[in-house]
Protein backbone atom coordinates (compact mmCIF):
# COMPACT_ATOMS: atom_id res chain seq x y z
CA UNK A 1 0.00 0.00 0.00
CA UNK A 2 1.25 3.44 -0.90
CA UNK A 3 -0.20 6.80 0.05
CA UNK A 4 -0.93 8.94 -2.99
CA UNK A 5 -2.46 11.88 -1.14
CA UNK A 6 -2.33 12.30 2.62
CA UNK A 7 -4.86 14.39 4.49
CA UNK A 8 -3.17 17.73 3.87
CA UNK A 9 -2.47 17.00 0.20
CA UNK A 10 -6.04 15.78 -0.28
CA UNK A 11 -7.57 18.98 1.04
CA UNK A 12 -5.07 21.12 -0.86
CA UNK A 13 -6.02 19.31 -4.05
CA UNK A 14 -9.73 19.77 -3.41
CA UNK A 15 -9.23 23.42 -2.58
CA UNK A 16 -7.20 23.92 -5.77
CA UNK A 17 -9.89 22.18 -7.86
CA UNK A 18 -12.53 24.41 -6.27
CA UNK A 19 -10.54 27.53 -7.13
CA UNK A 20 -9.98 26.35 -10.69
CA UNK A 21 -13.68 25.61 -11.13
CA UNK A 22 -14.63 29.08 -9.90
CA UNK A 23 -11.90 30.76 -11.94
CA UNK A 24 -13.04 29.14 -15.20
CA UNK A 25 -16.75 29.54 -14.50
CA UNK A 26 -17.25 33.01 -13.11
CA UNK A 27 -21.02 32.90 -13.61
CA UNK A 28 -21.86 30.06 -11.24
CA UNK A 29 -25.60 30.37 -12.01
CA UNK A 30 -24.93 28.80 -15.38
CA UNK A 31 -23.08 25.83 -13.90
CA UNK A 32 -24.53 22.54 -12.77
CA UNK A 33 -22.27 20.32 -10.72
CA UNK A 34 -23.01 16.61 -10.85
CA UNK A 35 -21.38 14.07 -8.57
CA UNK A 36 -21.30 10.54 -9.96
CA UNK A 37 -22.65 7.76 -7.76
CA UNK A 38 -21.41 6.20 -5.67
CA UNK A 39 -17.95 7.59 -4.95
CA UNK A 40 -17.94 10.86 -6.87
CA UNK A 41 -20.66 12.12 -4.56
CA UNK A 42 -18.35 12.62 -1.59
CA UNK A 43 -15.78 14.42 -3.74
CA UNK A 44 -18.62 16.57 -5.07
CA UNK A 45 -19.86 17.42 -1.58
CA UNK A 46 -16.36 18.44 -0.44
CA UNK A 47 -15.92 20.57 -3.55
CA UNK A 48 -19.25 22.29 -2.93
CA UNK A 49 -18.17 23.12 0.65
CA UNK A 50 -14.97 24.62 -0.69
CA UNK A 51 -16.69 26.64 -3.42
CA UNK A 52 -19.19 27.97 -0.89
CA UNK A 53 -16.30 29.28 1.18
CA UNK A 54 -14.84 31.00 -1.89
CA UNK A 55 -18.19 32.44 -3.05
CA UNK A 56 -20.46 32.50 0.02
CA UNK A 57 -23.28 34.38 -1.72
CA UNK A 58 -23.69 32.00 -4.66
CA UNK A 59 -26.45 29.45 -4.78
CA UNK A 60 -24.76 26.29 -6.07
CA UNK A 61 -26.64 23.76 -8.16
CA UNK A 62 -25.40 20.33 -7.20
CA UNK A 63 -27.00 17.06 -8.26
CA UNK A 64 -26.06 13.39 -8.17
CA UNK A 65 -26.23 10.96 -11.06
CA UNK A 66 -26.22 7.17 -11.01
CA UNK A 67 -24.97 5.53 -14.19
CA UNK A 68 -25.68 1.87 -13.32
CA UNK A 69 -28.36 1.45 -16.00
CA UNK A 70 -26.07 2.93 -18.66
CA UNK A 71 -23.04 0.71 -18.06
CA UNK A 72 -21.65 -1.27 -20.97
CA UNK A 73 -20.88 -4.29 -18.76
CA UNK A 74 -24.33 -5.13 -17.33
CA UNK A 75 -23.95 -8.69 -18.55
CA UNK A 76 -20.60 -9.26 -16.82
CA UNK A 77 -21.40 -7.96 -13.39
CA UNK A 78 -24.49 -6.54 -11.72
CA UNK A 79 -24.03 -3.32 -9.86
CA UNK A 80 -26.43 -2.09 -7.22
CA UNK A 81 -28.21 1.01 -8.41
CA UNK A 82 -28.00 4.22 -6.39
CA UNK A 83 -30.26 7.22 -6.44
CA UNK A 84 -30.20 9.96 -9.06
CA UNK A 85 -31.25 13.45 -8.08
CA UNK A 86 -30.96 16.26 -10.61
CA UNK A 87 -33.71 18.75 -9.70
CA UNK A 88 -32.80 21.35 -12.34
CA UNK A 89 -32.82 21.73 -16.09
CA UNK A 90 -29.44 21.14 -17.68
CA UNK A 91 -30.59 22.44 -21.07
CA UNK A 92 -28.15 25.08 -22.25
CA UNK A 93 -26.10 24.99 -19.02
CA UNK A 94 -22.52 23.98 -18.43
CA UNK A 95 -22.37 20.66 -16.61
CA UNK A 96 -19.35 19.65 -14.58
CA UNK A 97 -19.15 15.94 -13.86
CA UNK A 98 -17.32 15.07 -10.66
CA UNK A 99 -15.82 11.68 -9.86
CA UNK A 100 -13.14 10.32 -7.55
CA UNK A 101 -10.89 8.27 -9.86
CA UNK A 102 -10.69 8.38 -13.64
CA UNK A 103 -9.44 5.03 -14.90
CA UNK A 104 -10.74 3.34 -18.06
CA UNK A 105 -13.11 6.20 -18.89
CA UNK A 106 -16.09 3.85 -19.19
CA UNK A 107 -17.98 5.36 -16.25
CA UNK A 108 -17.70 8.78 -17.84
CA UNK A 109 -18.85 7.38 -21.19
CA UNK A 110 -21.95 6.04 -19.41
CA UNK A 111 -22.42 9.34 -17.57
CA UNK A 112 -22.38 11.25 -20.86
CA UNK A 113 -25.07 8.91 -22.16
CA UNK A 114 -27.16 9.33 -19.02
CA UNK A 115 -26.77 13.10 -19.14
CA UNK A 116 -28.26 13.15 -22.65
CA UNK A 117 -31.52 11.90 -21.18
CA UNK A 118 -31.79 15.00 -19.01
CA UNK A 119 -31.35 17.47 -21.83
CA UNK A 120 -28.75 19.05 -24.06
CA UNK A 121 -26.07 20.71 -22.00
CA UNK A 122 -24.18 23.58 -23.56
CA UNK A 123 -20.92 22.09 -22.45
CA UNK A 124 -19.79 19.17 -20.30
CA UNK A 125 -16.56 19.16 -18.35
CA UNK A 126 -14.95 16.54 -16.17
CA UNK A 127 -13.40 17.06 -12.77
CA UNK A 128 -11.64 14.15 -11.02
CA UNK A 129 -9.62 13.83 -7.86
CA UNK A 130 -7.23 11.21 -9.23
CA UNK A 131 -6.40 10.54 -12.87
CA UNK A 132 -4.86 7.13 -13.61
CA UNK A 133 -3.08 8.07 -16.80
CA UNK A 134 -2.18 5.49 -19.45
CA UNK A 135 -5.01 3.12 -18.45
CA UNK A 136 -7.69 4.69 -20.57
CA UNK A 137 -9.84 2.49 -22.81
CA UNK A 138 -11.77 5.40 -24.33
CA UNK A 139 -10.76 8.84 -25.59
CA UNK A 140 -11.79 10.73 -22.45
CA UNK A 141 -9.61 13.19 -20.52
CA UNK A 142 -10.28 15.29 -17.42
CA UNK A 143 -10.57 19.08 -17.55
CA UNK A 144 -9.74 19.42 -13.86
CA UNK A 145 -7.54 16.91 -12.10
CA UNK A 146 -6.43 16.70 -8.46
CA UNK A 147 -3.48 14.42 -9.08
CA UNK A 148 -2.36 12.41 -12.08
CA UNK A 149 -0.62 9.12 -11.33
CA UNK A 150 0.84 6.24 -13.27
CA UNK A 151 -0.49 2.84 -12.28
CA UNK A 152 -0.58 -0.72 -13.52
CA UNK A 153 -3.89 -2.38 -14.31
CA UNK A 154 -3.60 -4.83 -11.39
CA UNK A 155 -3.35 -1.99 -8.88
CA UNK A 156 -6.28 -0.31 -7.17
CA UNK A 157 -6.71 3.33 -6.21
CA UNK A 158 -8.97 4.04 -3.28
CA UNK A 159 -10.13 7.33 -1.84
CA UNK A 160 -10.84 6.59 1.82
CA UNK A 161 -12.85 9.34 3.47
CA UNK A 162 -12.69 7.84 6.96
CA UNK A 163 -8.90 8.15 6.80
CA UNK A 164 -9.06 11.28 4.62
CA UNK A 165 -6.41 10.02 2.25
CA UNK A 166 -5.93 8.34 -1.13
CA UNK A 167 -4.12 5.00 -1.29
CA UNK A 168 -2.66 2.80 -4.00
CA UNK A 169 -3.04 -0.92 -3.38
Amino acid at each position, binding site marked *: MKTILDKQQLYLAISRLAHQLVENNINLNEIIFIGLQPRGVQVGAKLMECIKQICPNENLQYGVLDITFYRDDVRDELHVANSTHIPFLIEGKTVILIDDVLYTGRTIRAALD*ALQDFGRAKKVELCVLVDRRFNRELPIQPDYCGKAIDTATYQKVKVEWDKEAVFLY
Partner: protein
Amino acid sequence: MQLSTKHLLGIKDLTPTDISLILSTATQFKEVLQRSVKKVPSLRDVTIVNLFYENSTRTRISFELAEKRLGADTINFSASASSITKGETLLDTVNNILSMKVDMVVLRHSASGAPHFLAKHIPAAIINAGDGINEHPTQALLDALSIQEKLGSLEGKKILLIGDIMHSRVALSNIYLLNKMGAEVMVSGPPTLIPKYIKEALHVQVEYNIKKALQWCDVANILRIQLERQNQVLFSSLREYNLAYGISKKLLDGLNKEIVIMHPGPINRGVEIDSDVADSHQSIILQQVENGVAVRMAALYLLAGNKPIT
Protein backbone atom coordinates in the same frame (compact mmCIF):
# COMPACT_ATOMS: atom_id res chain seq x y z
CA MET B 1 -24.69 -8.44 -6.10
CA GLN B 2 -27.23 -10.52 -7.93
CA LEU B 3 -30.37 -12.55 -7.45
CA SER B 4 -30.02 -16.05 -6.04
CA THR B 5 -32.21 -17.41 -8.81
CA LYS B 6 -32.00 -17.55 -12.59
CA HIS B 7 -35.76 -17.27 -13.08
CA LEU B 8 -38.53 -15.43 -11.29
CA LEU B 9 -40.99 -18.28 -10.87
CA GLY B 10 -42.42 -17.31 -7.54
CA ILE B 11 -41.76 -15.45 -4.33
CA LYS B 12 -41.36 -18.86 -2.69
CA ASP B 13 -37.88 -19.25 -4.25
CA LEU B 14 -36.63 -15.77 -3.34
CA THR B 15 -34.59 -14.84 -0.28
CA PRO B 16 -35.32 -11.67 1.72
CA THR B 17 -32.09 -10.25 0.22
CA ASP B 18 -33.44 -10.89 -3.30
CA ILE B 19 -36.68 -9.14 -2.44
CA SER B 20 -34.87 -6.13 -0.97
CA LEU B 21 -32.62 -5.96 -4.02
CA ILE B 22 -35.59 -5.97 -6.41
CA LEU B 23 -37.42 -3.33 -4.37
CA SER B 24 -34.42 -1.02 -4.05
CA THR B 25 -33.66 -1.35 -7.77
CA ALA B 26 -37.33 -0.61 -8.51
CA THR B 27 -37.07 2.60 -6.49
CA GLN B 28 -34.24 3.75 -8.76
CA PHE B 29 -36.28 2.86 -11.84
CA LYS B 30 -39.16 4.94 -10.46
CA GLU B 31 -36.86 7.93 -10.64
CA VAL B 32 -36.02 7.05 -14.27
CA LEU B 33 -39.76 7.00 -15.02
CA GLN B 34 -40.10 10.59 -13.75
CA ARG B 35 -37.57 11.90 -16.29
CA SER B 36 -38.50 13.42 -19.60
CA VAL B 37 -36.65 10.58 -21.34
CA LYS B 38 -38.11 7.61 -19.47
CA LYS B 39 -35.74 5.11 -20.96
CA VAL B 40 -32.39 3.51 -20.20
CA PRO B 41 -30.34 1.32 -22.55
CA SER B 42 -29.55 -1.51 -20.08
CA LEU B 43 -31.31 -4.31 -21.99
CA ARG B 44 -30.85 -3.12 -25.55
CA ASP B 45 -29.14 -6.41 -26.44
CA VAL B 46 -31.96 -8.50 -25.02
CA THR B 47 -35.08 -9.82 -26.74
CA ILE B 48 -38.08 -10.71 -24.62
CA VAL B 49 -41.22 -12.59 -25.56
CA ASN B 50 -44.44 -11.96 -23.68
CA LEU B 51 -46.38 -15.21 -23.78
CA PHE B 52 -49.89 -14.63 -22.54
CA TYR B 53 -51.99 -17.77 -22.51
CA GLU B 54 -54.52 -15.98 -20.37
CA ASN B 55 -56.14 -12.55 -20.66
CA SER B 56 -54.55 -9.58 -19.00
CA THR B 57 -54.60 -5.81 -19.25
CA ARG B 58 -52.43 -4.36 -16.51
CA THR B 59 -49.77 -7.03 -16.27
CA ARG B 60 -49.29 -7.27 -19.99
CA ILE B 61 -49.10 -3.54 -20.65
CA SER B 62 -46.94 -3.12 -17.59
CA PHE B 63 -44.45 -5.78 -18.71
CA GLU B 64 -44.35 -4.46 -22.24
CA LEU B 65 -43.78 -0.92 -21.05
CA ALA B 66 -41.09 -2.08 -18.61
CA GLU B 67 -39.30 -3.93 -21.43
CA LYS B 68 -39.47 -0.93 -23.73
CA ARG B 69 -38.25 1.43 -21.01
CA LEU B 70 -35.22 -0.83 -20.62
CA GLY B 71 -34.52 -0.71 -24.33
CA ALA B 72 -35.26 -4.41 -24.93
CA ASP B 73 -36.86 -5.76 -28.08
CA THR B 74 -40.23 -7.31 -27.40
CA ILE B 75 -42.51 -9.78 -29.09
CA ASN B 76 -46.08 -10.25 -27.99
CA PHE B 77 -47.91 -13.48 -28.17
CA SER B 78 -51.49 -14.11 -27.20
CA ALA B 79 -52.89 -17.60 -27.19
CA SER B 80 -56.09 -16.78 -29.04
CA ALA B 81 -54.28 -15.51 -32.15
CA SER B 82 -51.64 -18.23 -32.35
CA SER B 83 -50.90 -21.75 -33.47
CA ILE B 84 -51.90 -23.28 -30.17
CA THR B 85 -55.41 -23.32 -31.56
CA LYS B 86 -53.89 -25.74 -34.11
CA GLY B 87 -52.69 -27.98 -31.30
CA GLU B 88 -49.09 -26.96 -30.69
CA THR B 89 -47.82 -27.72 -27.18
CA LEU B 90 -46.44 -25.06 -24.81
CA LEU B 91 -42.91 -26.46 -25.02
CA ASP B 92 -42.96 -26.61 -28.82
CA THR B 93 -44.27 -23.06 -29.05
CA VAL B 94 -41.57 -21.76 -26.72
CA ASN B 95 -38.78 -23.72 -28.38
CA ASN B 96 -39.82 -22.36 -31.75
CA ILE B 97 -39.78 -18.83 -30.43
CA LEU B 98 -36.42 -19.36 -28.71
CA SER B 99 -34.86 -20.65 -31.91
CA MET B 100 -35.40 -17.13 -33.22
CA LYS B 101 -32.87 -15.97 -30.58
CA VAL B 102 -35.08 -14.77 -27.75
CA ASP B 103 -33.38 -14.32 -24.37
CA MET B 104 -36.20 -14.05 -21.86
CA VAL B 105 -39.75 -15.31 -21.55
CA VAL B 106 -42.56 -13.65 -19.63
CA LEU B 107 -45.26 -16.26 -19.19
CA ARG B 108 -48.83 -16.10 -18.03
CA HIS B 109 -50.66 -19.39 -18.07
CA SER B 110 -53.87 -20.75 -16.62
CA ALA B 111 -52.09 -23.93 -15.48
CA SER B 112 -50.30 -23.70 -12.15
CA GLY B 113 -46.65 -24.67 -12.55
CA ALA B 114 -46.43 -23.92 -16.28
CA PRO B 115 -43.41 -21.59 -15.85
CA HIS B 116 -41.69 -24.13 -13.57
CA PHE B 117 -42.12 -26.75 -16.26
CA LEU B 118 -40.65 -24.44 -18.89
CA ALA B 119 -37.73 -23.52 -16.63
CA LYS B 120 -36.69 -27.17 -16.55
CA HIS B 121 -36.71 -27.51 -20.32
CA ILE B 122 -35.43 -24.29 -21.83
CA PRO B 123 -32.28 -22.23 -21.32
CA ALA B 124 -33.90 -18.75 -21.34
CA ALA B 125 -34.71 -16.81 -18.16
CA ILE B 126 -38.39 -17.05 -17.28
CA ILE B 127 -40.56 -14.57 -15.44
CA ASN B 128 -43.85 -15.79 -14.11
CA ALA B 129 -46.59 -13.28 -14.87
CA GLY B 130 -49.20 -15.40 -13.11
CA ASP B 131 -49.71 -19.16 -13.27
CA GLY B 132 -53.16 -20.52 -12.49
CA ILE B 133 -53.87 -20.38 -8.78
CA ASN B 134 -50.20 -20.63 -7.80
CA GLU B 135 -48.19 -17.40 -7.84
CA HIS B 136 -48.02 -13.92 -9.31
CA PRO B 137 -44.64 -12.75 -8.04
CA THR B 138 -44.39 -9.33 -9.72
CA GLN B 139 -47.79 -8.39 -8.30
CA ALA B 140 -46.63 -9.21 -4.76
CA LEU B 141 -43.44 -7.22 -5.35
CA LEU B 142 -45.32 -4.16 -6.56
CA ASP B 143 -47.72 -4.47 -3.64
CA ALA B 144 -44.72 -4.57 -1.31
CA LEU B 145 -43.19 -1.50 -2.93
CA SER B 146 -46.51 0.35 -2.61
CA ILE B 147 -46.84 -0.56 1.09
CA GLN B 148 -43.21 0.39 1.69
CA GLU B 149 -43.75 3.79 0.09
CA LYS B 150 -46.90 4.43 2.08
CA LEU B 151 -45.78 3.10 5.48
CA GLY B 152 -41.99 3.32 5.33
CA SER B 153 -41.29 -0.39 5.69
CA LEU B 154 -42.85 -3.83 5.69
CA GLU B 155 -41.48 -5.14 8.94
CA GLY B 156 -44.04 -5.45 11.70
CA LYS B 157 -46.84 -4.06 9.53
CA LYS B 158 -50.23 -5.74 9.65
CA ILE B 159 -51.51 -6.68 6.23
CA LEU B 160 -54.97 -8.08 5.64
CA LEU B 161 -55.90 -10.03 2.51
CA ILE B 162 -59.62 -10.13 1.88
CA GLY B 163 -61.70 -12.30 -0.40
CA ASP B 164 -61.00 -15.24 -2.65
CA ILE B 165 -57.86 -16.56 -0.97
CA MET B 166 -58.42 -20.04 -2.39
CA HIS B 167 -58.13 -19.09 -6.05
CA SER B 168 -55.87 -16.08 -5.74
CA ARG B 169 -52.27 -16.29 -6.93
CA VAL B 170 -51.91 -12.70 -5.75
CA ALA B 171 -52.78 -13.84 -2.22
CA LEU B 172 -50.27 -16.70 -2.21
CA SER B 173 -47.41 -14.56 -3.53
CA ASN B 174 -48.28 -11.81 -1.08
CA ILE B 175 -48.33 -14.22 1.85
CA TYR B 176 -44.90 -15.64 0.95
CA LEU B 177 -43.42 -12.19 0.48
CA LEU B 178 -44.89 -10.55 3.56
CA ASN B 179 -43.85 -13.48 5.75
CA LYS B 180 -40.29 -13.31 4.40
CA MET B 181 -40.10 -9.57 5.00
CA GLY B 182 -41.35 -9.76 8.57
CA ALA B 183 -44.88 -8.41 8.14
CA GLU B 184 -47.89 -9.91 9.90
CA VAL B 185 -50.51 -11.40 7.59
CA MET B 186 -54.18 -12.09 8.16
CA VAL B 187 -56.68 -13.47 5.68
CA SER B 188 -60.40 -12.83 5.74
CA GLY B 189 -63.32 -13.87 3.58
CA PRO B 190 -66.08 -16.43 3.35
CA PRO B 191 -64.98 -19.77 4.89
CA THR B 192 -65.61 -21.46 1.54
CA LEU B 193 -62.96 -19.27 -0.09
CA ILE B 194 -60.28 -19.75 2.56
CA PRO B 195 -58.29 -23.01 2.44
CA LYS B 196 -58.90 -25.07 5.55
CA TYR B 197 -55.34 -25.48 6.81
CA ILE B 198 -53.96 -22.17 5.60
CA LYS B 199 -53.15 -21.10 9.17
CA GLU B 200 -50.82 -24.04 9.72
CA ALA B 201 -49.47 -24.25 6.18
CA LEU B 202 -48.63 -20.61 5.54
CA HIS B 203 -48.42 -19.12 9.05
CA VAL B 204 -51.15 -16.56 8.63
CA GLN B 205 -53.98 -15.54 10.91
CA VAL B 206 -57.56 -16.22 9.87
CA GLU B 207 -60.49 -13.99 10.81
CA TYR B 208 -63.95 -14.53 9.35
CA ASN B 209 -65.38 -11.38 10.88
CA ILE B 210 -64.54 -8.66 8.37
CA LYS B 211 -64.99 -5.80 10.82
CA LYS B 212 -62.59 -7.29 13.37
CA ALA B 213 -60.11 -8.03 10.61
CA LEU B 214 -60.21 -4.45 9.30
CA GLN B 215 -59.81 -3.07 12.80
CA TRP B 216 -56.64 -5.19 13.21
CA CYS B 217 -54.84 -4.22 10.00
CA ASP B 218 -52.74 -1.30 8.71
CA VAL B 219 -53.32 -2.24 5.08
CA ALA B 220 -56.24 -4.07 3.49
CA ASN B 221 -55.49 -5.73 0.17
CA ILE B 222 -58.85 -6.54 -1.37
CA LEU B 223 -58.76 -9.38 -3.88
CA ARG B 224 -60.92 -9.83 -6.90
CA ILE B 225 -63.62 -12.46 -6.87
CA GLN B 226 -62.34 -14.77 -9.60
CA LEU B 227 -65.49 -16.13 -11.12
CA GLU B 228 -63.53 -17.68 -13.97
CA ARG B 229 -61.67 -20.01 -11.59
CA GLN B 230 -64.66 -21.24 -9.62
CA ASN B 231 -66.07 -24.49 -10.86
CA GLN B 232 -68.56 -24.85 -8.04
CA VAL B 233 -70.76 -22.45 -6.15
CA LEU B 234 -68.83 -21.15 -3.15
CA PHE B 235 -71.16 -18.33 -2.21
CA SER B 236 -74.74 -17.81 -3.19
CA SER B 237 -74.60 -14.54 -5.10
CA LEU B 238 -72.40 -11.54 -5.80
CA ARG B 239 -74.96 -9.41 -4.02
CA GLU B 240 -74.67 -11.55 -0.90
CA TYR B 241 -70.88 -11.46 -1.10
CA ASN B 242 -70.98 -7.69 -1.31
CA LEU B 243 -73.22 -7.43 1.72
CA ALA B 244 -71.09 -9.76 3.83
CA TYR B 245 -67.51 -9.06 2.66
CA GLY B 246 -67.63 -6.08 0.31
CA ILE B 247 -65.64 -3.13 1.61
CA SER B 248 -67.91 -0.13 1.95
CA LYS B 249 -67.35 3.41 3.11
CA LYS B 250 -69.61 2.75 6.07
CA LEU B 251 -67.48 -0.20 7.18
CA LEU B 252 -64.29 1.89 7.02
CA ASP B 253 -65.91 4.86 8.79
CA GLY B 254 -66.79 2.52 11.64
CA LEU B 255 -63.09 1.88 12.37
CA ASN B 256 -61.22 4.07 14.80
CA LYS B 257 -58.28 4.50 12.39
CA GLU B 258 -57.57 5.07 8.73
CA ILE B 259 -56.27 2.06 6.86
CA VAL B 260 -54.65 1.83 3.43
CA ILE B 261 -56.77 0.22 0.71
CA MET B 262 -55.19 -1.84 -2.05
CA HIS B 263 -56.54 -3.93 -4.91
CA PRO B 264 -54.57 -5.80 -7.58
CA GLY B 265 -57.21 -5.08 -10.25
CA PRO B 266 -59.32 -5.49 -12.23
CA ILE B 267 -61.88 -4.10 -9.79
CA ASN B 268 -65.39 -5.49 -9.61
CA ARG B 269 -67.03 -2.32 -8.38
CA GLY B 270 -69.93 -3.07 -6.08
CA VAL B 271 -68.75 -6.64 -5.44
CA GLU B 272 -65.58 -6.85 -3.35
CA ILE B 273 -65.10 -3.09 -3.14
CA ASP B 274 -67.50 -0.14 -3.39
CA SER B 275 -66.74 2.70 -5.76
CA ASP B 276 -66.43 5.36 -3.07
CA VAL B 277 -63.77 3.25 -1.33
CA ALA B 278 -61.87 2.45 -4.52
CA ASP B 279 -61.72 6.14 -5.44
CA SER B 280 -61.09 7.48 -1.94
CA HIS B 281 -57.86 9.08 -0.73
CA GLN B 282 -57.14 5.97 1.36
CA SER B 283 -56.88 3.89 -1.79
CA ILE B 284 -53.47 3.43 -3.44
CA ILE B 285 -54.78 1.28 -6.28
CA LEU B 286 -53.41 3.52 -9.03
CA GLN B 287 -50.04 3.89 -7.28
CA GLN B 288 -49.86 0.10 -7.35
CA VAL B 289 -50.26 0.16 -11.12
CA GLU B 290 -47.60 2.86 -11.41
CA ASN B 291 -45.19 0.86 -9.26
CA GLY B 292 -45.85 -2.18 -11.44
CA VAL B 293 -43.72 -0.85 -14.29
CA ALA B 294 -40.78 -0.01 -12.00
CA VAL B 295 -40.89 -3.38 -10.24
CA ARG B 296 -41.01 -5.26 -13.55
CA MET B 297 -38.12 -3.21 -14.87
CA ALA B 298 -36.15 -4.18 -11.78
CA ALA B 299 -36.98 -7.88 -12.15
CA LEU B 300 -36.11 -7.92 -15.86
CA TYR B 301 -32.92 -5.93 -15.32
CA LEU B 302 -31.69 -8.15 -12.49
CA LEU B 303 -32.51 -11.40 -14.30
CA ALA B 304 -30.99 -10.30 -17.60
CA GLY B 305 -27.76 -9.62 -15.72
CA ASN B 306 -27.54 -13.28 -14.81
CA LYS B 307 -27.26 -14.26 -18.43
CA PRO B 308 -23.86 -15.70 -19.29
CA ILE B 309 -22.10 -14.00 -22.18
CA THR B 310 -22.55 -16.05 -25.33
